[in-house]
Each structure stands twice: as C-alpha cells, then as structure tokens.
C-alpha cells in the first residue's frame, strides 16, 4: 500500500521532471554553473510542492489594496528585495525562487481564501505574509490544515505558537517589557496612561504592560482607553490625560488613527519634549503620515529603526532604496518581513529539503547573521531571539537610538504571570 503510494509519487516526479526538461532544451545546451551540483528534486521535495529542477515557488500574501495597503506595501517590497538578493546569490538549494503574489485586500476571509489557493493550487513551498492579527488568525487554520509554512512579520500579541508559522516580529513581552523598564529607570516613571486601538493586539499588550507596571515596577496605571480602528476623535482622552498628568503616555493606536491622535495631542498643548510618550505602534512608516513635527520627541519601543548603525543595515537601507525609490522609509515590520525569505532559505539549506515538516523541525537554532537589525536566531517556539530598542522620534521622521538591550531577549509567547 505505502509502496504503491511511493511509486505513484515517484512517477509523478519523474513526469514533472520530464516536463521540466522538455520545456528547457535550450537551457540544457548552455553551460549551467550552479545548477550542476544542485540536489535532485525528488530528494528535496517529497510532498509534491511546486519545486522543479531550476525553480521553487514561494507565495507572498499581503494587502496590496484596501486600508492596510499603506502598512503592508513595505513588507511586500522587502520580501521581494530579499528574494531578488537570494536569487542573485544562487537561490535556495540550487533553485531560483519564483514568486506568486496574492492580494489579501485588507479583508480577512480573502486572506484565508488566498492562502488556501497558494497552498492547494500553487503548492508553494512557503508563504511570506499576513500583517494584522486578524489576517493571521484567519490564515492559521488554513496553513495548519494544508501543512504550509508561513513567515509572519508583524510584532504581535503572542498567545500563539504553531509548527507551521515562523514569527519574525516580536511578541508582546519581548517588545514591551524592556521599554517599560527603561522608561521607569531613565525617567523615574511611576504613573502610566494607556491609549490603544480596540482589538486584540493593543488589549493584550496593555494587559501585559499593566501587570508589569503594577507587579514589577510598582507603578500605577491611571487610565486605560480604547478607540475603534480608524477613529479620529481623541479629544476626550486627551482631556483625561491632562487631568491625570501621567508620567508616561503609553500608546498602541494603529494605522491612520495615529495621524489624528498626534496632531490633536500637539494642538492640545501637550509638548512631547516634556511629556514622556512611549509608543509601540509607530514606526517610520506611520511617521510618514503623522509628520515628523507632530511626533518629534516621542519614544518608540521595538526592535529595528532605519537609522541603526551596523554594517548589515548600511547595506540593507541603500539596497532597499535602490529597488523601491529614495523616498521610501523602512519601519520595524518592513525589516522583519525582509528576514522571512532569508530564514526560510537558511532553514531549507540546513534541512536539505523543502518539505514543510523538515523545515519546521530544522527551524529552531537557525541563525541569520546578515539581519539588518543585527544577529537573530529562531527559538524552539518558532519566534525570534532579538534585541529590544528604544528610539526617539526626530523632526525628519527618523528615530535616534537611545537604548538597546545588552543581550537578545528571549521570546515568550505564553508569559507566566502576565495572563
């Protein structure tokens, strides 16, 4: 029975192989420098993925249209950059990466539908994609059911771990705790006011922040307010902030709402050079919309800033701008998205296979020394070890690094004592 199956599979590969060969007779005439030693397709792909002797197919699944396009475009761009660079360097296991891009259209069911299409129809070896928690939650059952591999770039709320997902952004404790410690130590902060958008990520992040403030820093949370996504009226919360006079305003407002929030904060006379504000949701991409003059002086806590001064980043930033234009900016998530294709390549090479099970098993311990944020390593829980940094927003829309953790912070998606 199982032998039969094997035979069937093998003949399928043989057929594919023959088809591939028939399609490229001209190519076989030419000298083939790097493909010569490439391992046989049947050896590195035993589950029928879209791998030929010269190509391996990877899906990109982000919102190119709709409200999230503004955020996700950066991720698409950096994933394409990483794939172009990998192809230039000879590809993965001797095969060039072919991209199939799908549009999630800022619509969660569409994400699920397209993920399924990529896995079932296109048989992609991996998907680089998703951005919001909602889109990931929609796609997760699909990648688990059809055994796909998803590289997810956004910092997120944690409380999740899957064999089929590599989280290249930070989970909540990784991102928040070091920032809170820093602000407590550096600014002597005791009282905090939380403002967030109303969905799972800000709620969970603030829950963790509250526990940390109350139990570890022995401080006080003087207010906690949530606004619907896309909200543009923050006057009432700004009044409350003025009344409670917190040492720190801690924000996780997302997307377009940020523009209104920071403008109204400034209009209300709250000067961010005197009032400490720590945000975990504003990257260089968002400042593009907010305007540097409205947010200068605020602190952001994440793992990457475009202004980071290290050799990897000095190569990455110009390469990105060369491919996508001088005016583009690179935020935390854009950088994390860049890691996805590279980590997948390194894992496939370590595993010596494109099979999802082997990739998943080989992922822990994979190191990427060329990461623009510096060195990263995949943890057993499929999240990344990474440093946490605090930057201060400048007028020109860039961040000035003011603090970074000495060591890599361990990812802890199910934090004890913070639930």
């Amino acid at each position, binding site marked *: 029975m199982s032998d039969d199956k094997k035979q069937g599979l093998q003949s399928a590969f043989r057929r594919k192989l023959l088809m591939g060969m028939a399609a490229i007779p001209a190519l076989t005439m030419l000298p083939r420098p790097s493909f010569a030693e490439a391992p046989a397709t049947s050896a590195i792909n035993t589950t029928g993925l879209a791998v030929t002797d010269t190509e391996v197919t990877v899906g990109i699944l982000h919102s190119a249209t709709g409200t999230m396009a503004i955020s996700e475009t950066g991720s698409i761009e950096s994933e394409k950059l990483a794939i172009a660079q990998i192809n230039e360097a000879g590809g993965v296991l001797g095969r060039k990466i072919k991209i199939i891009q799908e549009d999630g259209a800022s619509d969660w069911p569409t994400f*699920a539908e397209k993920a*399924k*299409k990529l896995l079932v129809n296109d048989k992609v070896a991996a998907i680089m994609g998703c951005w919001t928690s909602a889109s990931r*939650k*929609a796609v997760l*059952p699909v990648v688990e059911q059809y055994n796909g591999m998803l590289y997810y770039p956004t910092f997120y709320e944690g409380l999740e771990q899957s064999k089929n997902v590599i989280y290249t952004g930070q989970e909540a404790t990784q991102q928040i705790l070091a920032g809170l410690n820093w602000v407590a130590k550096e600014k002597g902060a005791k009282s905090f006011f939380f403002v967030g958008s*109303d969905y799972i990520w800000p709620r969970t992040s603030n829950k963790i922040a509250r526990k940390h403030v109350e139990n570890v820093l022995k401080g006080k949370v003087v207010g906690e307010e949530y606004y619907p996504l896309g909200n543009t009226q923050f006057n009432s919360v700004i009044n409350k902030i003025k009344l409670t006079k917190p040492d720190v305003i801690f924000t996780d407002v997302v997307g377009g709402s940020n523009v209104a929030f920071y403008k109204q904060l400034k209009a209300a006379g709250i000067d961010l050079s005197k009032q400490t504000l720590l945000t975990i949701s504003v990257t260089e991409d968002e400042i593009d919309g907010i305007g540097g003059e409205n947010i200068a002086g605020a602190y952001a806590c994440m793992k990457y800033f475009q202004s980071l001064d290290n050799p990897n980043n000095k190569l990455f930033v110009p390469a990105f701008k060369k491919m996508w234009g001088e005016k583009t900016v690179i935020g935390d998530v854009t950088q994390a998205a860049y890691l996805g294709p590279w980590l997948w390549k390194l894992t496939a090479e370590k595993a010596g296979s494109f099979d999802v099970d082997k990739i998943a098993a080989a992922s822990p311990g994979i190191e990427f020394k060329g990461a623009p944020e510096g060195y990263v390593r995949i943890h057993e829980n499929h999240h990344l070890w990474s440093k946490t940094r605090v930057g201060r927003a400048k007028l020109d829309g860039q961040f000035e690094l003011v603090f970074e953790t000495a060591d890599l912070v361990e990812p802890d998606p199910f934090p004890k004592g913070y639930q």
Partner: protein
Amino acid sequence: MTENRFVNRSELIGILLLAAFLVVILPLCLDVFRLNLVAKYLTYAFVALGLVVCWGYCGILSLGQGVFFGLGGYCMAMFLKLEASSVENTKIQSTPGIPDFMDWNQITALPAFWQPFHSLTFTVFAIILVPGLFAFIIGAAMFKRRVGGTYFAIITQAVAAILTILIVGQQGYTGGINGMTDLRTLKGWDIRPDHAKIVLYFFEVGLLFVCIFIAQFIRHSKLGRILVAMREKEDRVRFSGYSVANFKIFAFCVAAMFAAVGGAMFALNVGFMSPSFVGIVPSIEMVIYTAVGGRLSILGAICGTLLVNFAKTSLSESFPELWLFGLGGLFITVVLAFPNGLAGIWTDYVAPRIAGLFTSRKSKSGDGWAEKPVADGAPAE
C-alpha cells in the same frame, strides 16, 4: 389561469439550466478548491435572492443585508466555535473550555447568551428566527411610520454600522475584529476536509433551490402581485384597502431570512465569521451583485453574484495591484449600459431572438429571466 402556476415554462427551463449548471457541470469541471469557492459565492446568492424579493419585487432597497447575513453567520459560528472549544482543545488557556478569544479578553466563564448555542436544534432555529425577528422589529418600526425609499436605505445602513461597532467593541463576547476563527466540526463531523466541502456544497445548492422555489411561489401568488403593485403605485394599493406596511414587513423579513441562511452556510463553508461581512461595505457589495445580475430576476441575481465574485477572484489573482479598478469598471459599465442588469440583456436582446427562432406563433411569451418593471409586472387579473 396560467399565472397561477408558480413556475411558468420558461422559468422552469431557466431553473433546470441553473440546476444542471450547479449540480452537474460545476462539480465535474472544478477541483475541490474551486468548488469550495463557488460554495462561498453561492452564500451571497442567498442574499441576492432576498434582495430580489424585497428590492426587485417590492421596491424596498435595503443597504443593510449584511446585518442579517452576519446574524445568521454568527449564530452558526457560535455553535461551531463552542464545539471547537472543548476542554481538550483549549488546554493551554487560563480557562479551558471557553472560546479562545474569551480567554484572551480575560473572560472566565461562558456568558449566558452563549449557553443555548450548545444545542444544534436551537442554533438552526436561531439562524432563521433571530434575523427574522430583528428584521420584523426594524420593518415594523419603519414601515408602520411610512418611512420608505431613501430614508429606509439610510437607516438600514445605520443599523449595519451599529452592529459592526457592537461586534468589534464587545470582543470578549464576539471575537471582535478578528471574528470567530478556526471552526472545526459540526456534531463531530469535520467540516474542513475535501469530502466535507463537497457534501456542504451540494447541501447548500439544495437549500438555494428551496429558497428559489419559495421566492417563485411568492412571486406568482396573489401576495407577489400585491408586492409588485406596491412597488409601482403604493398609494393605489393602500387605497384599495391593503395594509401596505404589513406586506413590506413580510418582504423584508423574507429577505432577511434568506440572507441569514446564506450567512450560516458561509460559516460552515469558509470555517469562520467576522464583522467584515456585517458592515456597510459588504452590504452594498451584496446590492451590487443583485444589480449586476438584474434585480427583477431570481436567476439573474444568482448569476450576477456568481459572475461578480468569479471576476473578483480571477482579477485579483491575475492583477493583485490593479484588480479593484477593473471591478469598479465592470460595475459602472453594467449599471450604466444595462439598468436591468444581465437579466435585462437576456430579456431585451437574447430572448426575443431565441423566441423568434423557435416560435413563430407567439412572438413574446413569458420570460424566465426577468420581467419588465411596468409592462409585465402589473397584476394581470
């Protein structure tokens, strides 16, 4: 009189063609993945069918059908979510046995209004009755006060907006913007594998035909003629002694229940439900399906739904960055050039020729695809 039969000959041919297309041709031509997509499109066909009854027959434009689609879908999703959240499946949570999103929002016990959704029988009734009752309340409040036309459309929009905000805001109870994801089994029967998708597809097609026959029955009954009469000259019907409001409420409730059945099938087929089907944008999109297909024609609206959704999928696969423009262009062209939608093209251009080919005696027999608003629509007694 021939009008008393609830399908005439050409309508019957149309329905049989559709049945052959959905039951035989599509399952033979498509793989399971595409067939499941068709099943998803067909869930919107239920909404379109409802809109034909309420907008096409009766002239009530509702821009809030997503509300009923959503209510039906959420009822189904709540049942499925409870089944997926067994203590065994949710061991890692702080409170095992409740849906994951409740745990994330620090809720430690299942809320009371969730309890009845442990029962499938209750759920099935809730899918039909909750949206039906809700539509009755809105309809009664509006139509009894003679609120109609544009004002009614605006109010349905407001209801859609309110319900979205409610669902997003109460995320501990509803899953918020993420919706209810990871639905797995129906009474222990896994709804995710391929063979389940095929079974669900045929079940859904069956339900769709039940709804089509109900719509046909309404259209050809005396009731249907009153509805059409109200669309054309509401005052005359009122002066003839009919309670216009009651008929309108009825049509609106039927549309709501159809939409709810679609929503429930959506939750089963796609495996999740989220507020992105409840709001204003999806509600308007559903009206567009109906408009493209032809709001006066049952089969037209269903074909319109399939066509628009198919265009959506294939355009977005081929041109991920440009497809929305293409889709916008399609809507504008159809609505500008063919006010009665695709069904209008059929009745105005294709059907007469076919009729000319086949019958020389009767040049203009009844047409199954659409009726002209004034000429054929008026009561014929």
